[in-house]
């Protein structure tokens, strides 16, 4: 250890706001409830996440991409990808469920449009510039403080917006002896962008250190592998996030992104690596949260699914319906979430994709209502604009 750790007192003496630490007792979210959204970017192939191995059309459509005997059985129809052992274990314990045919309202098959709709929660593309999770935070914050955090070096759209949201990624920690943070806060006093961002960043650093989320990165003064995609990095990221979520006054709402799910060619090994990272992230979160897992709901989503048929290059092209995962220690019992439209030729969307049987917003609205007590009016009008026609899917969490 080279620099002395910056104590809470030193921070206070430096005149810095400590938003997390000052608000321990006043959470508006039902006590202790936590909600995490994991975005798998690139269009995750739902049929390889939770494969309908019992659907007679699955193997003919998928050919060499069909999962083999090592797939992890869930029920008579579905089996998880072998790269998801931790999710499978949770599923067998009733703490993970699949929603096998979900989609946003967007049908353009463009990553960027679809991610925009996925993250803004709007009915159409480029309709708003803030994220639905941010507006959910804003809505809950009306009744008391709610903290939100994204993990990773850039701020994901889902958490950008009017409600303040912090971000964190592994790093070397802040030099406690430096006057610079204080001087900068002064220079940024009238800066609406840099001022609040730096203040929150410093506060999050403090929380990271005090909660243990920073892990080894502070102790050795060394950078931990930053925001990597490997299993170990993902596991560590999950555990760091768990430390944040458990910390008194820490965030209750969080968002994480994983990249690399756009598998047009040579899909099986590429996707296996990505799913292994996802599995490790979720495993790290589950283990790290310990008893708090029972108060946590994790939703794993992607912008769209992929073609039901394998393409000509050992991969799949942009499609529509995909699979979402819902995980948490307090999930309600039940099978799959939503209906399974099957893979018969007539059932496919435009003779090409998994039919979008469930509007993803219905699932998201249901989780916000059941788990976090968000009221219907906010869900219909503000958080998911113009979505009164999309009824919350209740009873999952």
């Amino acid at each position, binding site marked *: 250890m080279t620099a002395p750790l910056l104590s809470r007192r030193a921070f206070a003496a430096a005149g810095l706001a400590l938003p997390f630490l000052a608000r321990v007792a006043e959470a508006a979210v039902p006590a202790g409830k936590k909600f995490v959204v994991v975005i798998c970017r690139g269009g995750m192939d739902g049929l390889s996440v939770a494969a309908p191995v019992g659907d007679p059309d699955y193997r003919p459509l998928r050919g060499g991409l069909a999962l083999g005997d090592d797939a992890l059985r869930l029920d008579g129809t579905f089996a998880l990808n072998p790269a998801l052992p931790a999710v499978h274990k949770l599923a067998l314990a009733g703490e993970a469920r699949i929603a096998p045919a979900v989609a946003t309202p967007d049908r353009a098959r463009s990553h960027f449009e679809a991610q925009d709709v996925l993250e803004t929660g709007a009915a159409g593309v480029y309709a708003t510039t803030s994220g639905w999770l941010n507006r959910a935070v804003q809505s809950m914050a009306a009744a008391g403080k709610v903290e939100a955090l994204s993990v*990773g070096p850039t701020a994901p759209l889902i958490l950008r917006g009017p409600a303040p949201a912090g971000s964190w990624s592994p*790093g070397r920690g802040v030099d406690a002896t430096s006057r610079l943070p204080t001087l900068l806060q002064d220079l940024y006093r009238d800066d609406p962008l840099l001022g609040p961002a730096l203040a929150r*960043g410093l506060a*999050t650093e403090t929380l990271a250190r005090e909660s243990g989320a920073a892990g080894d990165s502070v102790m050795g003064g060394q*950078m931990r592998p930053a925001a990597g995609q490997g299993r170990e990095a993902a596991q560590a990221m999950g555990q760091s996030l768990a430390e944040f979520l458990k910390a008194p006054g820490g965030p209750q709402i969080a968002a994480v992104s994983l990249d690399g799910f756009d598998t047009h060619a040579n899909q099986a090994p590429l996707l296996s690596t990505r799913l292994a990272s996802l599995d490790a992230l979720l495993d790290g979160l589950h283990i790290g949260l310990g008893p708090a897992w029972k108060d946590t709901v994790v939703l794993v989503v992607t912008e769209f699914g992929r073609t039901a048929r394998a393409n*000509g290059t050992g991969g799949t092209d942009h499609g529509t319906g995909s699979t979402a995962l819902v995980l948490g220690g307090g999930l309600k019992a039940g099978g799959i979430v939503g209906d399974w439209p099957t893979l018969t030729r007539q059932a496919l969307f435009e003779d090409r994709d998994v039919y979008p049987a469930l509007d993803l917003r219905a699932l998201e609205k249901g989780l916000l209502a059941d788990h976090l007590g968000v009221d219907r009016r906010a869900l219909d009008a503000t958080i998911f604009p113009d979505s009164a026609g999309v009824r919350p899917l209740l009873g999952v969490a």
Partner: protein
Amino acid sequence: MTQRELDAAIAVTRFGLGARPGEIDAASKDPRGWLKAQIRREGADVFKTDGETSSQRLAEFREYRQEQAMARQDKAAPPPIPPGASMQMEAAKPAADPVQTARQFIRQNAAGDVLGRLQLASETDAGFRERWALFWANHFTVSANKVQLAGLVGPFENEAIRPHVFGRFADLLGAAETHPAMLIYLDQAQSVGPNSRAAQFQRRGGPRRGLARNDDQPRRTFGLNENLAREILELHTVGVDGGYAQADVTEFARALTGLSIAGPREPGVEGVVFRDATHEPGERTIMGVRYAQDGKAQAGAVLADLAAKPQTARFVCTKIARHFVSDDPPPALVARLEKAWMASHGDLDRVAEALVDAPEAWAPRPAKLKTPYEYVVSSYRALGQEPRGLGQVNAALNGLGQRPFGAPSPKGWPDEAGPWAASDALVKRMQFAQQLGAVFGPKVQAPTELAAQTLGARLTPAVAIAISRAESRPEAVALLLMSPEFQRR
């Protein structure tokens, strides 16, 4: 402060990559003329590499794969050393895992390219020309998301992008879409027409090893991959609202079949090939236009038409205005750029001149937050330095979420403040400023003078005072680099 002094600071920091000492002075005689002098038909500068072309890098990678396959067949054989690997490496890692060794070798290639690119940006006295090149490299993103691509992104930029950035957009488009790096990145290299001769031959039980293959993966069926076709339409030309549908994407993908890279069974050929045998036969209809079956020329005709479409001018000019001026670009500015584009049939030097001439581009308020790459480069420029090794700068860029040659998707790096202004990122920017301050600060004679040289008329009194009151030179430098006016442009 005169208008010309402010314009000089804007020219160097907003259009350019940030001031090196003396640069704002140099621009102050005629800020617009200083910028226009950087526009040249022959293109942007290429950055220094080890001199290897994409064809050479492809050949090395392929030879290595072949040796690796042979080594697998004969387990007793010693692990192959990638061609070109130094004796030192050979001696240091005699029993290294061949895959790891190859990856390390490719990484060294890539690291050299990244460093050359950073050094050019840090040193050049034509910062506008370089920013213009970086814009187009991002527009036609190739990201090193496959091992093979790590050594190809640098050559791609030098071969396909930089020579064309002040020429005709159609030429730039053609060069970018037919470069081996793009064909690999967006999976075109493997795409085969479902009714092509090769696919029919294979269906009749042809050989297991296909023409489109340059490795030894297990057998798979031949067929179409629509990735490149979609991204050309959505990201490179008309944009997602450009008036195409799924059927156009698929038709375009069929037209593109045949375009691939040379495989091991095509000795003496490197890089891009067009194979009649994998081209989907027949006429294609794309966005209402019929394209006769014309082999290689079919896709070329589609690209030429896309380049000429007004939707393309609108889409790309909006991106230029967003990059240079504001996340919400003034419509009048976009209109000016579009007009120059359409009048010149996509002459990009004319578009660059129109940007310099546009009054909207000179608004005093700096609306753009620097991306991490711009922040790091402009920091070295301010100090009159350049990165001499990759260690520190790579760690900074990784930590800030902008890994060199590693854009997260074909859309490239975001060009708006939102994603980059994460609270964690501000802390990491501060840490980078502290590191540079610690390394270079002690040598800075007069920090207040450095601030004036760096920001010119854009330096605010508050920041000037804070720097003058700094308790050390490193602290003064860190304050300068973290000042609101240095973080923006």
